[in-house]
């Protein structure tokens, strides 16, 4: 079986600019929906995956408030570039992350869903922003399963439990589950499901599959620690 990546998929999230450190003029604050005063707990689930796999769509499908976007500039030294002053050449990549929110438990809990880009070069960002997540839903597209490997690697190294949901796009080839698991190198216990990120119920089911697994995973870990 061949999982050839799509040729020259455009990097649509990043903007790469020379780092200037310049601050723009104070912009008008964007409208934001306040968290109801009933909320006493919040939780976070991360939605990860390669470019264009449906992260923003899934968050938009399930969020009860208008999804918002944050931007984190990350500075990266370009290796091997040297100018006359011997200063390392730096570029700033702006990483966009969108997020939504669901209120539950009679308004006592706010569940935040964050779309994080799955590229391994964003590892420092992950350490900072994914910490404390209940778990992660990894979206994958069978036209480019390799695009999921970075996200899976980040999660494995951060010790964040995850489930994988295959988004079906027109023209996505379908493979038997065993082949998908093998191609993604999934642990036998890791849930593998399908979802249409454009559909609210389908997206919720993918999140439920993840959360059921997290809850079993947690029970197993608790038992293990009591041995």
């Amino acid at each position, binding site marked *: 079986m061949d999982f050839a990546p799509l040729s020259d998929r455009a990097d649509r999230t990043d903007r790469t600019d020379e780092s200037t450190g310049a601050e723009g003029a104070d912009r008008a604050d*964007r409208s934001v929906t306040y968290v109801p*005063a009933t909320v006493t707990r919040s939780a*976070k689930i991360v939605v990860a995956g390669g470019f264009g796999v449906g992260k923003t769509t899934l968050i938009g499908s399930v969020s009860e408030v208008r999804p*918002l976007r944050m*931007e984190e500039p990350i500075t990266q030294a370009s290796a091997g570039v040297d100018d006359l002053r011997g200063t390392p050449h730096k570029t700033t990549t702006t990483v966009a992350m969108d*997020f939504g929110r669901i209120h539950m438990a009679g308004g006592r809990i706010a569940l935040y869903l964050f779309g994080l880009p799955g590229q391994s070069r964003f590892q420092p960002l992950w350490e900072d922003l994914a910490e404390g997540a209940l778990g992660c839903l990894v979206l994958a597209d069978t036209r480019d399963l390799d695009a999921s490997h970075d996200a899976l690697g980040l999660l494995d190294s951060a010790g964040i439990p995850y489930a994988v949901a295959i988004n079906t796009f027109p023209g996505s080839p379908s493979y038997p589950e065993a082949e998908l698991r093998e191609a993604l190198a999934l642990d036998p216990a890791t849930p593998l499901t399908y979802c249409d990120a454009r559909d609210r119920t389908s997206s919720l089911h993918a999140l439920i599959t993840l*959360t059921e697994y997290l809850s079993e995973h*947690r029970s197993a870990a608790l038992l293990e620690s009591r041995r």
Partner: protein
Amino acid sequence: MSGPRRDPDMVRPYVRTQGRIRAREDVRLESVVIAATGPTDTLGPDARRVMRLFAGADGGLAVADIAAALELPPSTVRILVSSLMDSGHLSSPVAAIDDQPDFDLLQEVLRGLRSLV
């Protein structure tokens, strides 16, 4: 000179937050804060912008909401919010003692998601 001391991302949050260089561990992207009281005239410009967001608000905001509303990097907002909690300008809506273990939170989230379909 070379190395991280020249990195603008290392310098900027320090300048912006008047001393704090690291966020509190309990201040994460999803952490919700509410406004307490206190004079804001000694605060830096970004901290004042954060406090202005809460003027007249009848609820809280998560760190991520603040970052999106003010178009500031979430890593910077985590530090700003940490300082503002240290100084008592912001506080957590959760009682100081968090008596609910994580397992219950997960069960509540699972129940909550199931109730939506």
